């Protein structure tokens, strides 16, 4: 089944994000810190009149969060808006979602988010579920 996907760069890897999950793509302005929150939470940012929780995608995927990324994908999970930071945005194109090849073992965080793969010019790209990267929500799932 062909579906529209966003191809983004996270930690040097390309990921595919289902466009249904994406409300918009923005550049985040100043971020208000949230002390005591999990390290996956970068802070709060204003998106016009809306306050979004900024998620450090690197950290949520279990990677070092050295990135100073400002570009973010806005998604809506359970009544709250989140901005997931991405390094760059490559493309928006229709792809077919394929199941993960048998025997491929992903890292734990990737495994939780991974939904399958899409193929771009022969290169397999992991399709991820943004909701699984949202702290708190993903905790509830596990």
């Amino acid at each position, binding site marked *: 089944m062909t579906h529209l996907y966003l191809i983004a760069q996270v930690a040097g890897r390309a990921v595919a994000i289902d466009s249904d999950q994406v409300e918009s793509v923005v550049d985040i302005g*100043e971020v*208000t*810190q*949230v*002390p*005591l*929150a*999990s390290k*996956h*939470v970068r802070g*709060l*940012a*204003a998106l*016009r*009149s*809306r*306050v979004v*929780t900024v*998620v450090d995608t690197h950290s949520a995927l279990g990677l070092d969060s050295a990135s100073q990324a400002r570009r973010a994908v806005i998604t809506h999970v*359970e009544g*709250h*808006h*989140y901005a997931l930071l991405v390094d760059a945005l490559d493309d928006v194109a229709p792809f077919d979602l394929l199941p993960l090849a048998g025997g491929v073992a992903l890292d734990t965080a990737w495994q939780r988010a991974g939904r399958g793969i899409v193929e771009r010019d022969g290169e397999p790209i992991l399709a991820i579920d943004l909701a699984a990267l*949202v*702290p*708190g*929500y993903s905790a*509830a799932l596990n």
Partner: protein
Amino acid sequence: MDDLIQEFIAETRETLEALSGEIVAWEAHPEDRARLDAIFRFVHTVKGSCGFLDLPRLGRLSHAAEDVLAQVREGTRAADRPLVNAVLAVVDRIGELVEAIESGASLPDHGDELLIAALAEGAEEIAQTNLPGLHRAPARSVRLGVDLLDRMMSGMSDMVLARNELSRRLRGGDIDPTIEAALERLSLTVGEMRDTVTRTRMQKIDALFSALPRMVRDTAAGLGKSVLLHVEGSDVELDREMIEMMRDPLVHIIRNAIDHGIERPIERRAAGKRENGRLVVSARQSGNQIIIEITDDGRGIDTDKLIRKLVANGRDEAKLRGLSERAKLDLVFEPGLTSKDEVSEVSGRGVGMDIVRASIEQIGGRVDLDSQPGKGLRLAIHVPLTLSIISAIVVGAGGQRFAISRQAIEEIVTDHADAIRIDTIGGAQVLSVRGRRMPLLNLCEVLQIPRAAHDGPRMISIVNIGEGSYALAADMVLDNEELVIKPASPAVMSTGVYAGQTLPDSGLPMLLLDCAGIAHVAGLNFSRDEEQVEDEEDAVEAEAGIPALLFEDLDGVRRAVPLAAVDRVEQVEGSSVRFAAGRHRVTIDGRILPLAAQGKIEGRERLNVLRLKDGVNEVSYAIDEALDIITLPEELVPAREPGPIAGVALIDDEQVELLDILWVFDEHADREAVDAAPLCLIAGDRDGWMASFVRPLLETAGYRVVTQLPQGELPAVVLSTEAAPAELADKAPLVRLRSRRAAAGAGDDSVYRYDRAGLLSALEARMAGKGR
């Protein structure tokens, strides 16, 4: 003319709404002139308009009420209950008539004369009647989807931010004054717009509470009960949707509390309570919830009765009995249950607590019950906070801004102020301000953020979180703002220290702190305070309660000792106790003190010792452990024979022996010291004046003072009022006190009772005279 009538109707209706609280308040305090004047003005205005608009019936009613109120204002009549009821009935009727005029309905006028007659002095108290068949004409309104309102609100916020952005940009360069004026006008309009738009969605919870005084009064009066209502926190602003949803459950709960909870005055008196029941309705924000509490001091929930009812309805008794106490309480929410035996006029019309709970759960809330049989019921409705406007203080900590709800803040002080003092006790900081001591938390430390480089004084907010108060230090206090608070995402809320998020005009999101959550995260525990506060309340109510220390004695019995006698509690090594010179003695602070005990002292490594002082002597008393500070009930069953126990008191349904301090001192205090002090007997002290005023003076001067002569002892001197008992005069030297300043004559050797020096020298002279 029609326009005028419409205006009159609208105005009267508005005034009536505003007045309903006033009337009830006036009834509670008939001497309150301001309220009386408000009601008087109302009927006066109505009367005036009626003459003009040709409304004779209204005119007659208002005229009669005005006359009576004028008499009250002049002081020729007292605002007693029948009068207040009659005035209320007239005011109600005015409201009904106004509605009837508006809807074009006719209202039978046979009741008017009765109402007017009831206003006369000495008239029978009127029964409150409700005329059937009358419907209030609904205020003009339209229904809107909440969605639409939400879109409007967020559009409004966008507009405000855009305005801020624009004015920031313009401020930079040289701008045309006309543009500046236009921007100014835009700013003003946008500001006003925002307020209006916000009000479309938000409402003060007062809208829910303002009708309560009248409702409580009428409900209670209908049941022959008297209830004092206390409303707190009506400033909290809530989603209109929420307020509408809460209205019916709240009304139902309050009616239940008055009908089932609060007892009749006779029963209350028999139970030792005030005749007036107390009902407290309060609203506060806690975390991401609004909590509405309804507390009464009635009989609580009788779970036994509940179970009997349910069993009668065919439920399995053994199963119900086996439930935990909590689960038993929750049975009150079972469908089709009314816990009262007879169905009353007010509640118990088949709508049970099950409906209440269902409608609260429908909006995502829950109901908590806390019942104390015989003492009252506390019912807390928790509703999730979808949106609220609160007045907040903005504080700075570690270069960041946080909002604190103003409702939680008692006061703000700086750490440089003279009145405060900060100590470190066992690693925790404690703030003392005007005799209050409370834990001090540093916001930066709690949030684990570095303190901003800032040299000025720290600002300390004293926050109250219901169960107790604590002090919260921040780097600075920045602002005072009305903020629209929205719930934050679970990832933020899970920290437990935030109550929500907001977007102030700066365009930078800000977090609202949850003061209760901060206390929890910092590990503050107020349960001890709570007990103390309860004790204090009891003390105020009982007025005669004496604070006492409850302790576990060496023989395993729980005993109490009046707190006033205990100087302090100390822990000593078992080795510092010796059986020496015929008794146990303990070494404390380099002194030897007699040690009294009931139980085995030997063989303990450590001992807790009460140091008892009566001003002159010090005796120690060995105990196992100090437990608590309690208030002694007034009733005390005296012991059958004199001994270490003065009597038995009932504390929390447990018999507790009260240590007889006098006996302990008498038995254990070192004799020499006692004997050295001359015994002064106070005689004829009928009003207790001498015992309370002269006694301390004598004791400091080294006398032993008694009001009753101990057996086998003779007083060294007797101090008496002018009417001295003759039989004492020849046994011991007598000093008489007179209440007049001047002596009666040359033969009058009495001493003026405020003449300290004279009294002491007279005592000495008289005793010396006996020696000679």
